């Protein structure tokens, strides 16, 4: 497959997933504004960070292609990695709301650059796995379609990171699967939101 097609696919999938993350963030914010519950605020922040991570990755990858400044892809992935870690930690901490304090993110130049690779994807995989287990317990204790959709969303995202990690180790073809699974995760979030906002 030509590199341009792969990169274009990468950009589009990240962009669409970021839009889904922002929609979830918006509904979590609405829930926070009506209930003032900190867990919703942390959820909202988590999805905002996840959305910005994906969006910046997509934008910087596009910029790298257009400007031919290819180290922008590394900067993009570094930001994606850092923001996604923060996002997952925020989502996890929403289960222990009273304990959590977070600091402002450092400006990118102060962060050590992290290239796409098995280790950062492994870290994201671990965090996504912890959230998936939490949501799996939530679903299996008292089943409902809503709970299943949220559980499936993080399970898909978990497998997305797994495939990205495998791709980084050796198997290049897993890039496509990684993107499909991550997208399916955000699509599950969207399906849940559509059920919630549906009138009646």
């Amino acid at each position: 497959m030509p590199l341009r097609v792969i990169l274009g696919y990468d950009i589009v999938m990240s962009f669409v997933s970021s839009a889904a993350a922002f929609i979830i963030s918006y509904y979590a914010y609405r829930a926070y504004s009506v209930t003032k519950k900190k867990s919703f605020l942390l959820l909202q922040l988590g999805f905002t960070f996840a959305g910005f991570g994906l969006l910046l990755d997509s934008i910087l990858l596009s910029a790298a292609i257009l400007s031919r400044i290819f180290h922008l892809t590394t900067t993009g992935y570094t930001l994606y990695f850092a923001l996604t870690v923060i996002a997952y930690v925020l989502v996890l901490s929403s289960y222990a709301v009273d304990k959590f304090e977070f600091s402002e993110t450092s400006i990118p130049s102060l962060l050590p650059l992290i290239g796409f690779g098995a280790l950062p994807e492994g870290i994201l995989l671990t965090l996504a796995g912890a959230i998936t287990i939490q949501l799996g317990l939530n679903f299996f204790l008292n089943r409902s379609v809503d709970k299943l959709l949220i559980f499936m969303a993080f399970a898909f995202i978990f497998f997305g990171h797994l495939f990205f990690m495998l791709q980084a180790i050796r198997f290049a073809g897993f890039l496509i699967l990684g993107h499909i699974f991550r997208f399916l995760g955000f699509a599950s979030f969207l399906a849940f939101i559509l059920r919630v906002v549906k009138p009646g």
Partner: protein
Amino acid sequence: MKPYRSRLKIIMDILEAISLHGGKISTILTYANLSHDRCVKYLEELLEKGLVEEGADGYALTERGYKFLQELKRAERLAEAFGFRL
């Protein structure tokens, strides 16, 4: 043991009782499972905030109250889906 019911959940139950079963105080008491005194306190607060209004047939939801109830229901579903309590 009865599960703990938060203040928000009680308010939601009262608004839902009015929305679904009408605003007679006896109906609200039954549906929201509250003592008379507590129920009246909550209703006074809801009246003050413009979420309910008092009419000839008892209490009714205002436009604002109806929207607030819809938002609360969405928040409850989001909370349940993520395993939080409202």
